[in-house]
């Protein structure tokens, strides 16, 4: 007998999430083709807060989500929901996996590949718009959306760059990355020197005691 919680809600939530993911991937055929390369991989996400488990089975049809899996797992990741969000939105997933709060077991390369496919999902809105509105208005609306998204991405990147520059250079609210790295290097060097000095002092103290004794 099992004492596990009623799986109905969890299964329903996964079904809804899988449908949403499928719709998004249907609009991004290139990403779907890339997912086919990960067909034999199974990714296990163990979330500790809130507590739940999801198994991802990528394939040429999209990504199948399951709450239960029996069999080999390619990559298993354990952590809190905030850690998973950080990984999902990270520009540098490798650094996030190394420095973040996630525990990883298995092969990290397929997981990074999956993260990059999902993070760079390039959805083509034209097909459903043309199917709904007709050729000419659908195409024109898709062009407008594409321009708006491109402008939005450019504006966001530019804003981020300018904000970075303002914080570091204009307002001097935070030191630039290179300066911080130099500082840490100096601190590390100092720590090593102190250690060496402490060893030398200890040696001299022992020699002095021997001479006295």
């Amino acid at each position: 007998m099992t004492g596990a919680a009623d799986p109905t809600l969890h299964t329903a939530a996964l079904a809804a999430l899988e449908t949403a993911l499928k719709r998004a991937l249907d609009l991004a055929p290139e990403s779907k083709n890339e997912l086919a390369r990960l067909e034999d991989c199974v990714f296990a996400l163990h979330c500790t807060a809130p507590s739940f488990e999801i198994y991802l089975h990528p394939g040429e049809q999209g990504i199948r989500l399951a709450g239960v899996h029996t069999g080999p797992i390619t990559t298993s990741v354990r952590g809190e929901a905030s850690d998973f969000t950080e990984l999902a939105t990270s520009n540098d997933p490798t650094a996030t996996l190394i420095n973040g709060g996630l525990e990883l077991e298995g092969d990290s390369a397929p997981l990074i590949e999956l993260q990059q496919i999902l993070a760079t999902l390039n959805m083509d809105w034209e097909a459903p718009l043309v199917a709904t509105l007709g050729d000419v208005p659908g195409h024109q609306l898709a062009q407008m959306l594409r321009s708006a998204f491109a402008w939005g991405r450019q504006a966001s990147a530019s804003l981020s760059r300018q904000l970075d520059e303002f914080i570091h250079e204009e307002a001097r609210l935070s030191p630039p990355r290179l300066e911080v790295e130099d500082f840490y290097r100096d601190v590390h060097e100092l720590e090593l020197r102190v250690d060496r000095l402490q060893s030398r002092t200890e040696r001299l103290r022992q020699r002095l005691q021997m001479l006295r004794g």
Partner: protein
Amino acid sequence: MSEKDTTHFGYKEVDKDAKAGLVGEVFHSVAARYDVMNDLMSGGIHRIWKRFTIELSGVRKNNAVLDIAGGTGDLAARFAELVGPEGRVVLADINDSMLRVGRDKLLDQGRQRTIEFVQADAQYLPFPDDSFDCITIAFGLRNVTDIDLALRSMLRVLKPGGRLLVLEFSKPGNPLLSKAYDTYSFRVLPLMGRLIANDSDSYQYLAESIRKHPDQDTLLGMMEDAGFCQCEFHNMTGGIVALHRGIKA
């Protein structure tokens, strides 16, 4: 007539040899509107129950799967995707009307190459020993005349290490839910059957057959007695439905 020669058909006591025919009549009657009625009666939740069954089945590429009482082929269609072109999926049903509806639906979906259709009695499965990696029976076991005989037959055709999954209506644990469920089953279901399928008797039988079906622990014991090991069950939607799983050693 001795007690041993009778069995239940809903709340009626009938001759054992007559039950299959009576159940057959019910399913001949509901086959054409089976999917619509399932969605209406369960509010679509039967899809979630079946989805969890597929998750727990552990079916993967190249597996051989038997879906008994497969009806209109919901599970078989999903299994066909999971096992791939090198795998094998058999949709079996004792009722030719249900099998025909399922076969037409799946052929319309272009699955004729991956799914075999077999008219078979769960008590006497027409397959060699050790044939399947997984067997499922969803909302079918309570209609079988001799459940013990059917379980032993399923054990025989499973490969060692193979899984049996029984998805079936069961007993809700919460008394309030149980009362609401009773009201729904005996008042709303026959009414829906009369209004939508023009057949209240079949849906009355559905409600009665659920009440006569063994509860979670009894069915678990029956699976163990039949020879399955590592038997367990998962209650779903408060125990309205339970998914039992057993493994052939």
